[in-house]
């Protein structure tokens, strides 16, 4: 991994590099109007990339701080908005250079078209991700309460087989493996068929058989290794440690 430029840094360099080129071309008097529009997109992209860079460092600090503190019990833990905003802003940072190039070659309208279609695609994908992923949770005495849109359910500590960190270094997820999904499905609130279907989909198992659930990076605003450790600690507290 050493020497590899991070995505955010790459976007920042691309935005800054193109912005420099646009300013230089403007100075030479080449198509000032088009370049001004392109520069607007690049300024937007640079700001977004800077946000991404800051987010990376803030998240690192947050993760370091969380290592030393305990996860709160009995409260609903949600990811902070400044972390959630990081995803769409990163996409904006990546698409701004494309929009700038298109508007420099074609027209400002084309740049708007690029950003609008990327925004529409991001919103569509984001909607489905939000509907089916558990982003907030609560550590309760009986188990881990997970929240989906319009519904919540509890996974009893005794039903959890393991909680491991998976994914890449830049995108860590917590994979919670379950011995059975029946008790989680029985705890769905509100208890309607639609909500049970949604929960079963999230659990990768709707007939009570073993299932698993993937918790996104920074689900509940907690760093993945810290979250996995906290779940393991609760499992051990419930007397499950000996089962594995």
């Amino acid at each position, binding site marked *: 991994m050493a020497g590899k430029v991070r995505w955010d840094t790459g976007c920042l360099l691309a935005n800054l590099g193109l912005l420099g080129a646009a300013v230089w071309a403007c100075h030479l008097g080449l198509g000032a109007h088009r370049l001004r529009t392109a520069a607007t997109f690049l300024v937007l992209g640079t700001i977004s990339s800077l946000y991404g860079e800051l987010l990376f460092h803030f998240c690192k600090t947050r993760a370091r701080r969380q290592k030393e503190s305990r996860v709160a019990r009995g409260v609903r833990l949600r990811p902070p908005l400044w972390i959630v905003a990081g995803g769409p802003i990163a996409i904006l940072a990546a*698409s701004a250079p*494309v*929009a700038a190039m*298109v508007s420099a070659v*074609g*027209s*400002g*309208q*084309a*740049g*708007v*078209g*690029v*950003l*609008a*279609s*990327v925004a529409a*695609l991001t919103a569509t994908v984001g909607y489905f991700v939000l509907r089916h992923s558990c982003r907030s949770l609560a550590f309760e005495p009986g188990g881990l309460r997970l929240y989906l849109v319009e519904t919540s359910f509890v996974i009893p500590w005794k039903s959890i*087989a393991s909680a*491991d960190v*998976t994914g890449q270094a830049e995108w860590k997820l917590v*994979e919670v*493996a379950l011995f059975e999904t029946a008790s989680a499905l029985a705890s769905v609130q509100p208890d309607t*068929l639609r909500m*049970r*279907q949604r929960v*079963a*989909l999230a659990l*990768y*198992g*709707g*007939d009570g058989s*073993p299932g*698993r659930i993937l918790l996104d990076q920074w689900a509940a605003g907690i760093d993945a290794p810290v979250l996995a450790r906290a779940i393991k600690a609760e499992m051990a507290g419930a007397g499950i440690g000996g089962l594995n």
Partner: protein
Amino acid sequence: MRTWRAYFAHSSWRRVPNSLEVRRASCWRRVRSNRQPDQHSLRRVHDGPWILQAARPVGGGGEDRVKILIVSDPSEGDSSRHRNRQVFRRYLAVLVAPVAGILLALALGISPQRLRRAVEFQAVALAAAVYFMMALRWRARTAKRQRHLESLVGIRFTTPFWMTLMEATIPIEVGGALAAVFATLGLPGVGNGVFITFALFALALPWFKSGGLQPRSIVLERHGLQIFMSRATFLVPWTSIAHIESMGPEHFVALNLTLKDSESILDSAQPPDSKAREQIKMLMQSSRGGGAQVFLMPWVGGLDGRALERGIRAGIKGTAPGMN
């Protein structure tokens, strides 16, 4: 009213229509909601792509609700009629609607010159759609041919270019149609931007798939499944495949291989360096039992999912011709 619910191997509980068609090897069987299903007869229906594993009553006494366990999705039925209907709906939304918009604009007195760009975008979308339909037919023919091959052993299957292009036509189609809508509304520049975005997606799709996430080609060998990635080659021995699961409709079957020992497979990576291992790890996912899973997308290496499944099963059993 009787409710039918079904469990799908690759998704979850869903409501299915009150009448459910179950395809058998040679005929169509209709299970009606107004008839008490016979559990044994349902359990016996094992042939065909929709394998009914069990039917057992759930809820209050089993009179009103029947739970059917099946391993495919009736909403994605493999009948040609169903597929045609899906294709028709898709073209109606993507292609007919923008054409109707252009015609409406002409009727409203907008000059044809102003609508030229819209027509151009629509023509690109139409060309992409025609190519996709033709490629669907070629693919069906390829599937038929591959399913009738006596043995798949020793043949290197690589995704042909026309099949790669097929996936890229989908964003082109959508982008062209959306761009036509913007151009009809008098915003051809925005249309350009929308089309460029979708065109970039179209270019990126094959790169994402064969550039690292999925195998470029595969060979069924005597000892196992040889998988060629862009940076690595590795062998999955038949003995290390614990379980094979197929998912998706009949013309678009994906396979999930559960492996017993992922470490020895990683050790077989060629070239034996960290980059090759990293790429193989991207394809392998850890599974519950401590082993690993390899998810092969439909038409990986240009090979039909069912044909590949048959080849792998024969390899595991050691019954494929050319293996002895």
